[in-house]
């Protein structure tokens, strides 16, 4: 059972619905005991980095996640702000991320007049193979809605890369039982479905 962690960062209906459509059992919960009893976790997130960091601190979610993922090796899928919160912090505002991926979130600095936030479909390129991005198809494209991105400091933690505004950015990261993406797989048709399916089967 996948638990989609509800830490008051956006509507989780479309993510849950996409898992169900794929025949994958998923539930939305904020309850620490439910999270502890899950064999996979998903950390979604739409909104401000600082709100997410505050929710971690105030709800005790940080301790539960550290126990489950960092020490327990439970597979975790981070999406959008859920990826950004894996870094140590963000230019967007104060608050500490989980610090599981080396790096901080930075704002796009377009070199060609492109608008920030990035809103729309973009292509990505894998930096290396990984079971969660296996067979995503030719020219995979995903829906992005972001002003900030997690600038990974360790090359071996980078999973997907893309370009926006002439700037190369990290679109996905992975390390041990953790995998995370800046785009929204739940709004990215078959490309996103494949990632969610792969995650549901993944044994890190």
């Amino acid at each position, binding site marked *: 059972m996948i638990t989609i962690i509800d830490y008051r960062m*956006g509507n989780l209906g*479309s993510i849950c619905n996409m898992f169900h459509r794929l025949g994958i059992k998923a539930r939305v919960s904020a309850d620490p005991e439910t999270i502890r009893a899950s064999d996979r976790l998903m950390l979604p997130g739409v909104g401000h980095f600082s709100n997410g960091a505050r929710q971690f601190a105030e709800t005790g979610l940080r301790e539960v996640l550290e126990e489950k993922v960092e020490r327990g090796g439970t597979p975790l899928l981070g999406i959008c702000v859920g990826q950004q919160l894996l870094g140590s912090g963000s230019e967007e505002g104060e608050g500490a991320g989980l610090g599981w991926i080396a790096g901080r979130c930075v704002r796009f600095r377009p070199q060609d007049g492109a608008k920030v936030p990035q809103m729309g479909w973009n292509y990505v390129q894998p930096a290396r193979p990984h079971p969660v991005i296996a067979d995503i198809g030719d020219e995979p494209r995903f829906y992005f809605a972001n002003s900030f991105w997690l600038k990974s400091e360790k090359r071996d933690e980078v999973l997907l890369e893309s370009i926006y505004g002439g700037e*190369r950015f990290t679109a996905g990261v992975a390390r041990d039982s953790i995998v995370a993406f800046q785009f929204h797989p739940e*709004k*990215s048709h078959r490309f996103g479905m494949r990632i969610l399916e792969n995650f549901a089967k993944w044994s890190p």
Partner: protein
Amino acid sequence: MEPMTAEAALPPLLLPKRRPRVIPTLLLKDGLLYKPVRFKAPKYVGDPRVAVKIFNDKGADELVLADMTATIERREPDYELIKEIATESFMPIAYGGGINSYDQAARILELGVEKIVLNTALASTPALSEKIAGVFGAQSVIGCLDCRKSLLGGYSVYVEAGRRRMGGKPEDIAQRIVGQGVGEIMLQSIDREGTGQGYDLALVRRVAGAVDVPVIALGGAGNVDHFRDAIGAGAAAVAAGSMFVFTGPHRAVLITYPPDEQLHRAFGTR
């Protein structure tokens, strides 16, 4: 010589060219889909939930969902239906119709809708777009300008489902609403709506040349060549209604969306 940085040593990214977005526009009346011609004689299309599933399967870039009668009937948006559709949609969604307060817009965005479309509120509540943009970002606010050509060749902008004229030229109104937080302009030609004759390219040129936010052309698309023409006239994206829901001379209902490859060829991005 510059020292070699780690970044410079990386192999280059070879990404395909991005193509302009192609956006089906679905019109709601009493919770069902209808499609008018020139804002009149709406023809029944079907259930919006079914349409969204088909567009999921066909991989549409985004959807715009507009309640045609919420404003003129002074109704609240149908939150239950919007939530169902946002949950069912595996692509980004914009919603318009009957929004005249910040609380309504916030409630809809929190249901999982990506963007709010404003038309009547641009005239009646000019501060609204700025307030939504201030909290959710300018990318979450689309200003829809419904335009009609006058006999003398000028254009007027209409609100309240084409019933009331706003003062001013479309390009001036476009500049004003961008200054009030609107992040995208949906530019609709009422005269072309549902006709399949092609977009009003002169209108697209006037407005796209006046603002630096994306302009989405709407009204008149009959084939993918019309899409290319609108982009050539300065639009950043294209939207269409009838073309995606009807087929043949008798306008039989058939929900379709061109394959990605066909769109790339039409735009010259392949």
